[in-house]
């Protein structure tokens, strides 16, 4: 029987690898999910037949509870996907930490130094990921303030907290029987998780969510080390690698180092404020004028940002896409890697609105096309279009790769007001002669353009 179970785990691992392989393209991705589901299902079923499992009643009940929690979380609206993802990181880390804690209490006081090290690391990472992810989910759900919360000497306090957890773990390696040390270690790690995420603001969420993804994966892999379970090691390593790669991509897209995201809250950076005080004029336009300009274009690139998600404007944007496409105008979307609150956020919202995915281009693909573009329409994006990132070395976002919307012949920006973006950085794009500001709520304004386009036609 044990052998059969082991074989089912090997089959599961093969399934996991194929699932990720097939996710490389939207065409085969559905197949990837299916094989992942089968692989997981087989492994869970086989485990239920494990001779070590003697009590079934409560396992079945908790599996049903788990499904009852999981199904509604799988059915959330697409705009709620970032917070759902953060919450699932929390659940994953919680279960890894709890199993590690259980192993400690079963094993103590007979744990070797090495076993204690493995369990200690696993429980620390699992615990800090649990609270960190809860804070991230709270920020994304806007229960907690999205602004970075910072205070003087924060890094010292945070790092000392992490250090304290490590010291407690080292003490446990010598005295694994001191259960109160273990409890203290868990509390300190939970506290560090809170301290890790509270100073990080909304615009940095794509990086943080990826980083927490990575931690959740590595805590599962470490649990695999503790239990000597290779299937956990593989699944955790794959998840950890995935989160890690995404974090690196997000950091590159913001031209920031890992440590910078973790230890330097963006909102604090207030340089080049001097320029902002200058009186500069902007040109604004009405929906009629905007519709007329769009109708006269041959090639349009739409640049969506978090503002589109907040205004829930994706369906109106689809109507605009349809209306403009109907006139034979080429419309594409240019998507910055950190647009929105998690990696790929914009793509999912636009796909939900039924926009074909071959029209959704990432930054590297679209940037070469802006010089031939008649109209670049920016909807709720700000910093990712800021040309100061290319030209102004005193700007806090200097060096960050941006979407070169300023190279299009005309730029139209839908924006609520002239307020600076999340990072509080002035955007010179708005003062260019070729730029027209369209002031209003993204959803209403796009809706008004759609009506103008429909009315003006026929």
């Amino acid at each position: 029987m044990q052998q059969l179970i082991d074989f089912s785990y090997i089959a599961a691992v093969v399934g996991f690898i194929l699932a990720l392989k097939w996710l490389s393209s939207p065409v085969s991705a559905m197949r990837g999910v299916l094989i992942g589901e089968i692989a997981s299902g087989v492994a869970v079923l086989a485990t239920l037949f494990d001779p070590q499992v003697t009590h079934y009643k409560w396992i079945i009940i908790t599996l049903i509870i788990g499904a009852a929690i999981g199904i509604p979380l799988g059915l959330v609206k697409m705009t709620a996907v970032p917070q759902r993802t953060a919450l699932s990181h929390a659940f994953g880390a919680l279960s890894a930490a709890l199993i590690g804690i259980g192993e400690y209490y079963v094993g103590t006081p007979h744990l070797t130094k090495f076993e204690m090290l493995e369990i200690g690391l696993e429980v620390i990472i699992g615990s800090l990921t649990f609270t960190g992810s809860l804070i991230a989910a709270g920020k994304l759900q806007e229960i907690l303030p999205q602004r970075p919360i910072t205070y003087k000497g924060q890094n010292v306090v945070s790092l000392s907290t992490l250090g304290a957890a490590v010291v407690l773990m080292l003490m446990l390696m010598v005295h694994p029987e001191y259960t109160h040390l273990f409890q203290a270690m868990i509390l300190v790690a939970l506290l560090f998780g809170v301290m890790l995420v509270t100073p990080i603001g909304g615009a940095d969420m794509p990086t943080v969510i990826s980083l927490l993804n990575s931690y959740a994966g590595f805590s599962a892999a470490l649990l695999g080390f503790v239990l000597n379970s290779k299937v956990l090691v593989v699944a955790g390593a794959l998840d950890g690698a995935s989160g890690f790669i995404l974090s690196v991509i997000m950091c590159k897209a913001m031209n920031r180092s890992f440590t910078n995201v973790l230890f330097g809250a963006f909102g604090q950076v207030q340089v080049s404020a001097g320029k902002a005080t200058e009186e500069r004029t902007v040109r604004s336009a009405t929906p009629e004028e905007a519709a007329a300009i769009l109708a006269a274009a041959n090639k349009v690139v739409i640049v969506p940002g978090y503002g589109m998600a907040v205004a829930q404007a994706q369906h109106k944007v689809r109507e605009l896409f349809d209306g403009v496409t109907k006139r034979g105008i080429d419309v594409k979307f240019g998507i910055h890697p950190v647009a929105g609150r998690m990696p790929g956020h914009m793509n999912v919202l636009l796909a939900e609105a039924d926009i074909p995915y071959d029209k959704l281009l990432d930054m590297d693909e679209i940037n070469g096309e802006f010089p031939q573009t008649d109209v670049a329409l920016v909807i709720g994006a700000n910093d990712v279009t800021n040309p100061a990132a290319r030209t102004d070395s005193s700007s806090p976002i200097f060096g960050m790769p941006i979407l070169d919307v300023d190279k299009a012949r005309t730029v139209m920006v839908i924006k609520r007001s002239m307020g600076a973006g999340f990072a509080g950085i002035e955007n010179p794009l708005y003062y260019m002669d070729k730029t027209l500001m369209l002031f209003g709520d993204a959803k209403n304004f796009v809706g008004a353009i759609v009506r103008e386009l429909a009315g003006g036609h026929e």
Partner: protein
Amino acid sequence: MPADFISSLFVFILAGFLGFELIKRVSPLLHTPLMSLTNALDAIVVVAAIIIAGRHETKLSTLLGLIAVAASFSNMVGGFLITDRMLHMFRAGKAKKP
């Protein structure tokens, strides 16, 4: 160092590199489904939770195991469900739905 650790490390390193190569190829288009899918796969932790809960060694370890069963199984179910829903939304331009 125990032999179990060495063999686990072996598997970890190989799987990590394989993951790296595989995930590098995932289009940025699918980064959100990627995250929800890896989350669902990671929920395989549930098998360890089932065993620690089912072994019934101490009251505490059973209780912790049972909570872990619920938490990780909710991730498995929810993660696959939402990934499936998201991928259903991605359609190519040519195959237009009526």
